[in-house]
């Protein structure tokens, strides 16, 4: 049975004010893929707190993001995140930020083009409003400017 994270988070953070989860009941907006994936430009976004080389780390309630060159190697990526156990992802960032795998899928023609850069933020932000009103529009703006056809979001 999949873990029920909402009740477990309530227990784990029982010393805090109960978190108000985002609940969207309306049918979500729909943007069909306009061309096959093999011809599409795909951007990668990860919220696992990935950092490139000497980029400054994230902080609690940090709604900033980092640009990660698509050529970044595992050795060049670090992590700052407080909300999950990061040991495995530190040993191999592809556990939460599969840039190397996406490069391979680009080379194999599964995706038309992997957008450069990829985008990284730290998902442990308490304020959903901050994400909705500050972070998401900024990244959406970047994606529009980069003319991507689709983005692949890996939350962590």
């Amino acid at each position, binding site marked *: *049975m*999949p*873990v*029920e*994270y*909402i009740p*477990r*988070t309530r227990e*784990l953070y029982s010393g805090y004010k109960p978190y108000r*989860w*985002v*609940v*969207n*009941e*309306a*049918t*979500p*907006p*729909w*943007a069909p*893929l306009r061309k*096959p*994936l093999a011809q*599409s430009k*795909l951007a990668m976004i990860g919220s*696992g707190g990935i*950092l490139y*080389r*000497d980029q*400054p*780390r994230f902080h609690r309630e940090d709604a900033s993001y980092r640009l990660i060159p698509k050529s970044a190697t595992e050795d*060049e990526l670090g992590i*700052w995140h*407080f*909300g*999950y*156990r*990061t040991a*495995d*992802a530190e*040993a*191999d960032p*592809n*556990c*939460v*930020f*599969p840039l*190397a*795998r*996406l490069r*391979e*899928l680009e080379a194999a023609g*599964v*995706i038309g083009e992997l957008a450069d850069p990829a985008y990284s933020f730290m998902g442990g932000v308490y304020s959903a409003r901050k994400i909705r009103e500050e972070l998401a529009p900024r990244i959406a703006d970047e994606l529009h400017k980069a003319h991507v056809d*689709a983005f*692949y*979001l*890996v*939350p*962590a």
Partner: protein
Amino acid sequence: MTSALDITQAVNPPRAVFVNYPLGHQTGKPHQPDLQRQIVRDALEAFETISRPGTIVELPYVWDVNDRQWETTDYTGDFLPPRPPKEDADLVEEERRSRFTK
């Protein structure tokens, strides 16, 4: 991509793919590139197969076929690492960055 099914059901994104792995492994286990590639590939395939907004595709990957205990014990009790004192955190940060600022 998600490993937290109930949270994703509540958020209700247009498309999602669920992998039942512990948090921090949404796209696979460390140093298993074939597994990671297959998971990412399966996830991307959903761009072309999902046609109803709000669909969550559940992928068949199992973390450990002999042990499902993690589902009961993970993300409970002492899951969250203790917060290091600020000086320690600053030191770790400095060390990480200094590797690239020579």
